[in-house]
């Protein structure tokens, strides 16, 4: 359950942006990879619990889930990894590496017009 500390880090960033733009932040968008080790539902639960009844409310959390994708080191094919099948579907090589899926990143924040 490290989603609480992650939600806390997100709210620190929201406060910083709010001060920088001198405006209320209405929504924060994040990208969460399938292999990031972060559970979206727990994150949402912790995020809402921390925001509730504070000056940050109302604040929406918008999550974009990114699937696990690998890239082939032999033929450069980029493909979705399903059922842990990491071999290249195009050339059959076992030499593939992660192209996406580990993300835990901010995408955007939406601020109120001032």
């Amino acid at each position: 359950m490290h989603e609480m500390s992650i939600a806390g880090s997100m709210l620190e960033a929201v406060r910083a942006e709010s001060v920088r733009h001198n405006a209320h932040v209405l929504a924060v968008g994040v990208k969460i990879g399938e292999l990031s080790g972060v559970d979206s539902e727990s994150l949402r639960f912790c995020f809402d619990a921390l925001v509730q009844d504070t000056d940050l409310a109302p604040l929406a959390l918008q999550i974009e889930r990114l699937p696990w994708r690998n890239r082939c080191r032999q033929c450069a094919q980029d493909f979705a990894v399903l059922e842990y099948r990491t071999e290249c579907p195009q050339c059959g090589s076992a030499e593939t590496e992660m192209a996406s899926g580990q993300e835990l990143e901010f995408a955007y924040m939406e601020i109120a017009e001032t």
Partner: protein
Amino acid sequence: MTRIPLERKVLNENDRLAADLRQDFQRHGTRCVNLISSPGSGKTLLLERTLAAFEPGRRVAVLTGDIQTDNDAQRLARYGFPVRQITTGGACHLDARMVTTALAEWEPDAIDLLLIENVGNLVCPSSYDLGEEARVVLLSVTEGEDKPLKYPATFHRADLVVLNKVDLLPYVPFRMDLAREYIRRVQPDAEIVEVSCTTGAGLDTWRQWLERQKTEDRSQETEVRRQKSEVR
């Protein structure tokens, strides 16, 4: 309403502190290894066996993380090397700030090898960079060979996987070939070593891996120094 694009990591602050730690480690020639596993996989005993084999005066230190108690630090302190317990008081992982604070009272250039035993947990520690040079994930044969598939985020970031407690293989339905296959699927580049801290099997290979990391980096360092002196 205005949308501001933000292209940065959520754990930006942890990554910044970890980058500072990594830079300090490199400057002082400290090799830092982060050990991760579920509770009870044998991290502390592996560290005990590791410390017991070092020459006195060897510049090795240990940070050990737990939610409560300093039991592990007491076990590890018996070998005469500096050990510090990080008690997280509830947090399920170590972060770069805890490591920075714990290291503050040690002379950084007096440590060649820093072993960090993370909080026993196969999920949360994987998101937190501690500035380590290498990450080791332990999996003991009593846990089931499909752990790499159940916790791919953790195994994907492993440089070395230690398959521990192999002396128990005759008593448990653990299939080593499957375990290796599952590790390969989530992290094809990870090295794998089979170890028993009870019989001592595989410990030499583990120690060689620890030493090899050091030796390789030493030679790179020497190379850098040589190039610098050539430039002068």
